[in-house]
């Protein structure tokens, strides 16, 4: 059997070389761009190969880097779970690196590409290590490097006030999360006597219930910050939009998935039999994040912020799957747990791909229209046809519509939830169909939101001069998007082929091979896993859509060919000519939703009309509309004020008198001595 350690370490070294190339090219932007991103691409391809090999091999492999410090070993480990996340990382890194060649060309001379290349490679490196670290110390080290590289990339356009604030918020929230993780790892580590992951499972099951519950919650919150679950999501919609778009694609595509990886690690590797309430909490967090995420996304007309809120929504969908898997585990239904886990992990991969695709598409649009505001776009489908086609593919996929990949994972999630109702007699079973109904509401609202996002940005007449003058982006950017768009088709139509990848994963987590067991109908369809359960075939659907086009084709042959076609102006309501001002706006499109969910949004609007003679003939109208950001206003602002207040009070301790300071030291010494004697 070949070893995975070799190629995986090689990939990491290539990333390191890419980072070095970035540093070396600080003053030679063109060389830095080619060298560091080509090396990133090479590293990504190596990692894809290593991950595929590891998944094929199935067994875990552990090795140590040669420069260990006595207490903290640098152990790496590849098991099916980490290989799966590494695969997602590799695919995204490859596509984004290709995209970056063209995307960064416009930045040459204006910004330091070398620095960007350095941090970009560092981010990829740390992500690989996060997914493969087998020791808590090493894991946290990689985690911190990832957070810092992420911070530097988010703050790349630091001359803007908005960017600096977002970067700072990202850093603070990220460290609050890391703090919780640190405590959790130390609690678990002190029980295990070592920081190696291998010993954590035995240690976790030996902990008393309340302590185990605390550790579970600490992990959930700590990883939840990174994943962006509501209400600890506030940094995400701030930080993802301000980063350069290739970075946003990585951030939303894979960096937030480290939180999901961490949860999978804790839920299914460290913890043997989590209590029922743990599953309920995770499902509840999933439902809330999914629903509120999409509702806030609907109110955005900043294209990148809209996408960032959708990341929260999709993390919610993933967590619904995780929560179901946890509940099934508590109910001792390993087979159902495996199906729920497959649904969640399938959606993780899908979201990584279509969200990166959408961010890259948004990046191309931004690059040409110089705005993130959808109200100033429009008509781009004619001017940027390839970008539009790729963005549309992503929009269909993220809306969970057949036959693309989002549909497959949402279908699996529904099936897991439906099976859940019959798995127990306890009242908790009501949770499953309710979560399913909320998932369907989320999916339908997501479809509405992407009709808005695509329709307003790409269709009809251009709404600004920049949009009217936009041209298609360059070849490498198109290639980066096309790769991911193709992946949406492959993961959608090839679901029965891809699902086999989960065999080693479910074997590792629950000891059942659930992936290939779901393939039914002679390899055509996926089944729900139950004997007479539902089946789905995305390839069949796609095939039928093609075959059925014979019907309208016949009409066309019979009548349509001879039917006259004319081009005419759109009905302009009798006004002299249709202009972009007549078009529906993004704000207008989501107005019904805003009114229906007014209790959540608490919208505020202000209309001022200026008139000279009669109020019926206004000269100018000023309109302002705003949606309340509830979590900032009711939770984070009071919290910040409280911290400031406490800090002011604490300042009185710092009186400036040397006698007082000596007294503090004395008291602290006594206290420590007492603590030491007692312990």
């Amino acid at each position, binding site marked *: 059997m070949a070893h995975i350690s070799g190629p995986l370490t090689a990939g990491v070294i290539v990333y390191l070389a890419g980072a070095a190339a970035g540093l070396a090219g600080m003053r030679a932007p063109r060389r830095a761009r080619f060298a560091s991103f080509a090396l990133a691409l090479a590293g990504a391809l190596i990692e894809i190969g290593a991950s595929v090999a590891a998944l094929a091999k199935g067994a875990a492999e552990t090795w140590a880097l040669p420069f260990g410090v006595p207490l903290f070993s640098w152990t790496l480990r590849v098991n099916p779970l980490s290989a799966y996340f590494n695969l997602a990382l590799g695919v995204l890194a490859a596509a984004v690196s290709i995209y970056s060649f063209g995307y960064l060309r416009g930045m040459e001379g204006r910004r330091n590409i070398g620095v960007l290349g350095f941090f970009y490679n560092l981010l990829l490196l740390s992500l690989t290590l996060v997914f493969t670290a087998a020791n808590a110390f090493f894991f946290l080290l990689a985690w911190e490097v990832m957070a810092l590289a992420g911070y530097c990339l988010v703050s790349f356009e630091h001359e803007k006030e908005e960017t600096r604030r977002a970067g700072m918020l990202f850093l603070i929230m990220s460290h609050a999360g890391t703090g919780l993780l640190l405590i959790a790892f130390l609690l678990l580590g002190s029980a295990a006597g070592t920081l190696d992951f291998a010993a954590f499972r035995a240690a976790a099951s030996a902990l008393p219930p309340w302590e185990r519950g605390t550790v579970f919650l600490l992990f959930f919150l700590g990883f939840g910050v990174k994943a962006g679950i509501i209400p600890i999501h506030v940094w995400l919609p701030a930080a993802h939009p301000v980063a350069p778009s290739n970075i946003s694609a990585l951030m939303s595509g894979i960096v937030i998935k480290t939180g999901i990886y961490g949860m999978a690690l804790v839920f299914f590797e460290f913890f043997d039999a989590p209590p029922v309430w743990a599953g309920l909490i995770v499902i509840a967090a999933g439902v809330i994040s999914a629903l509120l995420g999409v509702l806030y996304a609907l109110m955005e007309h900043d294209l990148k912020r809209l996408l960032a809120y959708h990341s929260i929504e999709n993390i919610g969908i993933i967590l619904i799957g995780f929560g179901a898997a946890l509940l099934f585990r508590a109910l001792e239904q390993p087979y159902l747990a495996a199906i729920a886990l497959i649904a969640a992990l399938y959606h993780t991969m899908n979201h990584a791909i279509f969200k990166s695709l959408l961010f890259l598409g948004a990046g191309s649009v931004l690059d040409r229209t110089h705005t993130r505001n959808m109200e100033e776009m429009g008509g781009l489908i004619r001017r940027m046809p390839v970008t539009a086609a790729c963005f549309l593919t992503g929009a269909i996929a993220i809306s969970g519509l057949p036959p693309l990949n989002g549909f497959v994972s949402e279908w699996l999630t529904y099936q897991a939830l439906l099976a859940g109702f019959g798995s127990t007699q306890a009242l908790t079973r009501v949770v499953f169909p309710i979560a399913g109904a909320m998932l369907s509401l989320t999916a*339908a609202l997501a479809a*509405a939101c992407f009709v808005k996002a695509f329709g307003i940005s790409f269709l009809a007449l251009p709404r600004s001069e920049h949009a009217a003058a936009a041209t298609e982006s360059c070849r490498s950017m198109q290639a980066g998007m096309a790769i991911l768009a193709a992946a949406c088709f492959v993961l959608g139509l090839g679901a029965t082929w891809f699902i086999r990848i989960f065999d080693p994963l479910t074997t590792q987590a629950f000891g059942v091979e659930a992936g290939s067991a779901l393939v039914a109908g002679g390899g055509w369809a996926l089944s729900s896993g139950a004997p007479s359960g539902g089946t789905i075939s995305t390839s069949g*659907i796609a095939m039928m859509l093609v075959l059925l086009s014979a019907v309208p084709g016949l009409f066309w042959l019979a009548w349509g060919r001879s039917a006259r*076609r004319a081009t005419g*102006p759109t009905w302009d309501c009798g006004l002299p000519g249709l202009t972009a001002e007549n078009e529906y706006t993004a704000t207008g499109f989501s107005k019904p939703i805003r009114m229906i969910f007014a209790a959540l949004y608490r919208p505020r609007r202000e209309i001022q009309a200026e008139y000279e003679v009669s109020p019926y003939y206004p000269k100018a109208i000023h309109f302002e509309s705003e949606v309340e950001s509830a979590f900032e206003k009711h939770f984070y602002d009071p919290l910040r004020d409280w911290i400031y207040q406490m800090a002011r009070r604490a300042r009185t301790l710092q009186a400036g008198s040397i006698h007082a300071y000596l007294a503090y030291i004395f008291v602290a010494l006594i206290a420590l001595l007492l603590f030491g004697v007692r312990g």
Partner: protein
Amino acid sequence: MMGALLETIAQALLLLGVAPLVTGFIRTMKARLQMRRGPGVLQPYYEIYKLLRKEMVIPDTASWLFPATPYVLFLSTLLAGLMVPMVSAGTPLGLFGGVLAVVYLLGLGRFFLALGGLDTGSSFGGLGSSREMTISALAEPTLMLAVFTVAIGAGSTSLAQMVQAAIGQQWRFLAPSQMLAFAALFIVLIAETGRIPVDNPATHLELTMIHEAMILEYSGPYLALIEWAASIKQLVLMTLLINVFWPFGLPASWSGAGALTGLAYLSLKLALLSSVIVVVETTNAKMRLFRVPELMAVGFTLAALALVSSFLF
């Protein structure tokens, strides 16, 4: 394999052939109930035939999405129809998807239709798309919860299995959970097919229209495809409701005589359900747009009660 192919073709022909008739029947009945003579039952066929031969005018602001939309809508709706059991308990394309696939395929058609509405740049198109997506989003959880209630009873989301389970217990449709779920799904049917009190299919009054606003710029063969798809969608949803809750008289599989009996029963039940729709349309006024969420909330409550009563009784 051959049999499945024949079934598929037969059901496709049935969908294409019967759908305009149902629309025509509802229109005629409605006219009679309102003391009008109204057009004949076959009027929708004439309209489709007329539109297929007419000139079409494409707005100069539209992109390739505008002409692509009628095809996507037509194909996805037809495919959804092929997954629903019509004249027998089996369905030709049951392997390719169950009730979830039907719902999501209809969603795919709606997604494109809403984009087609926006593509023209007209204010009406945007207005219709916005309202259509909002209302369908609000109807979605009701639909799913009611479907789940039935699917849980049948232990499957496969429509053939769901119908089989219903055939197994002839009087099950009288159970509280089934009746509540039926009521919830009836509300969804009204909303999804754009009927009064949610939308008025007969109006072009700018303030109230939803579906008609979206397709305002379509003409000729494109409009024919859209109108046809709309009546197929109506037929699919009605058949779904009928066969899942009341499969009385449905043969177990496709066969010459069995299919004919099944067709006869289906026609009868379609006429019955259409009459109910006609009565609802005639006795109600169209709701203001922002009262529709209240109706949807009623539907959701009914579906939730259906779920709860499914394991209480």
